[in-house]
């Protein structure tokens, strides 16, 4: 297995630069030297800073907002923003209840941190001083703080006009009655905690009005600028031609930056009202208390199996705590409805029933965080499969191998009509089991540890749908459906290449990887390929970067545009070589015939500077091409990975230490394996956060309790081990080069693998942990409870 510390030397003249090259990222030169330009770095003349008055209560009627007279000109409330429409994200799924999110609170507040008033001053400190002087007259209402209590009759209502607190209920069933006579039947309640995504850079917005272009310009750290433009146009009632979104360098998104924010709407309104640029940057307290909640699931799940561990079916009721508002564009339907469609995992499933509830509570809206519902689903499913293994007297790995979809069955349509495109799931699991050496762990467990700690091994496996297409997303009926993806490719007069794409990098390294795709097709040196991203004025429309789609969709579009560009270059080159156009080839940046070659640079020079030398039938479109692309099937790609982990659990202190972590992943053909490794490491860190550290608890008044990083614990370098990575590469049959979406996987499997390992370590003590995060307190509590349960009654 490759030791990831010893990267082969990369780059340099003549080294491979196309698909598969481990090129160092071009963007790292500026990012690592502090020369990146993030929203907080932007300087504009006359720019002032905004701070918000946010609701201190989770659920209350607004009786009055008191603005001191001296601040009247600097404070704005909903009454001032008349004409600005609320944010509205409605799903077309049957029964979805409609609600709206006013950009500044109107009538009542529904979450701690909800925007109530906007304050502007020359400095952020000054704006905060003004905000501190504004007082709110709020009448407390009972808080809806628990998603299951929220469904009890008599609960307070987040949106009164609904009559209950359920955004959406879904039901799916295939043949569950056939499973009910199964000899093995295991039932549990399993839950994952609410989290905050915590990208290194918070959200931020600079709004300004460009009078020359008659255009509102919004700089925003956004994953999907064109979608932001759609939403902003709706809320402001402004035509899109008068709105420009520019997303500069973005320091991590993970889904948090894929949402239209009320702050974006407010600042857009403000700059047009005040006539000068304005900025708001999200500080860490705002991020933790008012913003990016994710991950809170609860499962009541029963798994049916035969004595040999083969699955007969799953029956589940799942609840997702969706917070107060339906966020744009994904809506409050997505996470819970997705649970139902992916709970069968990568397994053969003869029967299945799943009911889901997306529940409204007085918390921030739930947002799709790296992996989305898949992390919770993998957690629930994989913990249950270990329990099935225990009942069947089998190794957990054996149960997986007996149930995983097999390579000869690919492509495979599963019980929820997911079309798995390609892969060898059992091989990934076999490799992971071998690498982690389950046998030696069992021997070690039998021997015991000198320090009294208990060793355990845990596994998990998942497959991840990426690059969801039109048919998948149109079913949700939300304000965003991806279609064809476009890319523009243009040779410059001196033979460089400019690419314009509508996706946006927020850590994926697309300035490098998409250049590698272009290099693969055209042979232009990566150093001379320039990506233009993130600006709605300069790039084709795209739904943006989400759902592990960018390489499949934008990479496919770049390849398509470059191929067309190459064809046009060949015809010009053939004329310059006085050669039959049908028999020249494009290779390594040159058009070659039997009697010579001409470079793309010379061809470009001819088109731009010496049109008199062009062939009479030259394509008038020249050396600038915009092409659209979709994979052959739009049912998405399926990357997958098996994770295996060995832990040591300290029964004295409850600490969990990761001793070994193995990941066997298959992301199809990898454009830049080094970038992919980086994404896996980052995803692993987040998965460890979910498994052991991160939790945003709420009290009965709906108050978020982990309000600083002293309480909201994020894994750091001392908490994340160096994993041992193995790669398989099963191309997708449907995409360019066989690439698949790979960005989210690292964050999906770790909580399940780590929980299974902890339970493996502690099962002899009668302990079973069925929730994330697994904290020292919960470990000790479970050990003490199991000990008490064993004692004979006094």
């Amino acid at each position, binding site marked *: 297995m490759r030791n990831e510390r010893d990267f082969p030397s990369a780059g340099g003249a003549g080294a491979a630069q196309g698909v598969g090259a481990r090129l160092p990222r071009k963007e790292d030169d500026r990012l690592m030297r502090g020369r990146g330009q993030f929203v907080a770095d932007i300087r504009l003349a006359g720019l002032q800073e905004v701070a918000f008055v946010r609701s201190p209560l989770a659920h209350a009627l607004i009786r009055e907002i008191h603005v001191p007279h001296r601040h009247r000109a600097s404070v704005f409330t909903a009454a001032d923003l008349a004409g600005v429409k609320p944010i509205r994200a409605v799903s077309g799924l049957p029964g979805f209840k409609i609600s709206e999110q006013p950009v500044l609170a109107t009538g009542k507040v529904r979450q701690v941190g909800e925007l109530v008033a906007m304050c502007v001053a020359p*400095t*952020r*400190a000054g704006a*905060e*001083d003004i905000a*501190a002087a504004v007082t709110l007259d709020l009448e407390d209402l009972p808080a809806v703080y628990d998603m299951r209590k929220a469904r009890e009759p008599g609960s307070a209502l987040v949106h009164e006009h609904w009559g209950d607190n359920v955004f959406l209920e879904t039901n799916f069933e295939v043949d569950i009655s056939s499973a009910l006579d199964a000899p093995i039947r295991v039932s549990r309640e399993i839950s994952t905690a609410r989290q905050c995504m915590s990208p290194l850079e918070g959200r931020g917005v600079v709004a300004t009005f460009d009078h020359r272009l008659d255009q509102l310009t919004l700089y925003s750290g956004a994953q999907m600028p064109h979608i932001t433009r759609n939403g902003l146009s709706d809320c402001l009632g402004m035509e899109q031609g008068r709105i420009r979104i520019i997303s500069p360098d973005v320091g991590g998104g993970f889904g948090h930056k894929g949402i239209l924010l009320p702050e974006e709407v407010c600042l857009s309104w403000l700059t047009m009202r005040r006539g000068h640029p304005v900025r708001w940057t999200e*500080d*860490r*307290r705002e991020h933790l208390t008012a913003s990016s909640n994710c991950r809170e699931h609860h499962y009541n799940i029963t798994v049916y199996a035969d004595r040999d561990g083969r699955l007969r079916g799953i029956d589940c009721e799942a609840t997702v705590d969706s917070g107060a508002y339906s966020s744009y564009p994904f809506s409050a339907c997505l996470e819970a409805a997705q649970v139902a469609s992916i709970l069968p995992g990568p397994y053969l499933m003869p029967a299945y029933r799943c009911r889901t509830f997306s529940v409204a509570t007085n918390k921030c809206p739930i947002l799709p965080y790296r992996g989305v519902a898949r992390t919770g689903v993998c957690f629930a499913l994989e913990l249950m499969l270990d329990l099935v293994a225990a009942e069947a007297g089998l190794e957990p790995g054996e149960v997986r191998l007996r149930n995983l979809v097999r390579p000869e069955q690919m492509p495979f349509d599963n019980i929820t009509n997911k079309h798995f495109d390609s892969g060898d799931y059992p091989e990934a699991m076999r490799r992971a089991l071998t690498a982690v050496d389950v046998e030696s762990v069992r021997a070690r467990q039998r021997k015991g540890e000198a320090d009294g700690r208990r060793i355990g091994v845990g596994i998990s496996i998942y497959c991840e749908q990426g690059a969801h297409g039109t048919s998948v997303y149109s079913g949700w009926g939300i304000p965003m459906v991806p279609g064809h993806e476009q890319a523009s490719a243009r040779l410059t007069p001196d033979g460089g290449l400019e690419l314009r794409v509508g996706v946006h990098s927020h850590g994926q390294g697309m300035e490098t990887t998409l250049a590698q795709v272009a290099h693969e097709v055209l042979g232009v040196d990566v150093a001379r390929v320039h990506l233009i991203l993130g600006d709605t004025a300069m790039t084709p429309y795209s739904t943006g970067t989400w759902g592990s789609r960018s390489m499949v969709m934008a990479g496919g579009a770049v390849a398509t545009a470059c191929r067309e560009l190459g064809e046009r270059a060949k015809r010009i080159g053939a004329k310059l070589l006085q050669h039959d156009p049908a028999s020249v080839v494009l290779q390594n940046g040159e058009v070659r015939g039997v009697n010579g070659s001409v470079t793309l640079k010379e061809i470009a020079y001819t088109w731009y500077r010496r049109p008199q030398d062009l062939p009479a039938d030259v394509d008038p479109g020249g050396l600038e091409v915009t092409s659209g692309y979709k994979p052959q099937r739009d049912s998405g790609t399926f990357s997958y990975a098996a994770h295996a982990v060995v832990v040591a659990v300290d029964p*004295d*202190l*409850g*600490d969990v230490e990761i001793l070994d972590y193995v990941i066997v992943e298959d992301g199809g053909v990898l454009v830049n394996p080094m970038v992919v490794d980086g994404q896996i490491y980052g995803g692993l860190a987040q998965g460890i956060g979910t498994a052991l*550290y991160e939790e945003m608890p709420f009290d009965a008044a709906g108050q978020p309790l982990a309000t*600083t990083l*002293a309480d909201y*614990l994020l*894994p*750091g370098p*001392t*908490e994340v081990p160096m994993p041992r990575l193995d790669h398989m590469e099963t191309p997708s049959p449907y995409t360019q080069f066989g690439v698949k979406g790979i960005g989210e996987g690292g964050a999906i499997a770790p909580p399940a693998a780590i929980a299974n390992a902890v339970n493996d370590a502690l099962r002899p003590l009668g302990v079973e942990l069925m929730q994330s995060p697994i*904290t*020292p*307190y919960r470990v*000790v*509590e479970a050990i*003490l409870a199991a000990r008490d349960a064993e004692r004979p009654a006094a």
Partner: protein
Amino acid sequence: MKPAPFGYERPRDLQAALAVLAEADASAKIIAGGQSLGPMLNLRLVEPQLIVDITGLAELKQVERRGDELVLGACVTHADIEDGRIPDVTHGAMRDVAGNIAYRAVRNRGTVGGSLSHADPSADWVSALSALDAKLTLRSLAGPRTVTMQDFIVGALESALRAGEIVESIHVPAMPASAHWGYVKACRKTGEFAHAIGAIMIDPSAATARVVIGAIDSAPIVITNAAELFGGRVAGNYKERFDERVADAILAKAGVANAVHRHIHVNVLKHAVREAAAWA
């Protein structure tokens, strides 16, 4: 997260600082390393009218060995101790504690006096200096007074400092060569605040033991005569004699009602006892 407006003064000598503090009384806050006060200002947990910067006071950076004790000025930083820039009368115990406080960046600026004045129950010096039987000299315009660590730490974030009074120096008794030291803390993450601390200075040859259980959401439990934890007698085999049930009862009596917390605290103390037994 920006502070509310405040005035700022950086006095040149201790008398001037004391005079400023006496005048400003409750509406002034002292800043030394800023590692606790900085975040509190940013979060607007405190909004002082005046911040008095004491980092210019040479009197507070002095260190000297005086007879049987080391006298440290309040503005000595954790890094000064970690890096060995000051004499060590504790055979390395203080250096070990210092080197594990938070993160190096914090240690470069954070001061011993500041940490003690803040009196966070999870702070390392609060527990460690209690175990080392340190005393503090406090000074105001009215003059100096000396208090023990137990009398100084009154409760969570509550010290015995009176208005206009400042920690001037810390007196650490020289640890006998025959004493053993153990200091263990449980943290969720490297560098974060401890949720349980166990500290022990035990001298079997003198049959004495001083035990501190810290990070219990109030002032630490300081047991000056810890024989009861060792079956009534501090002897060479104290590791084996350590009685968890006595430790548990002490914690319960001190108000730690939660059995899980007590379990962790007792085990952290047990680990500290083991560490002391391995002190050579």
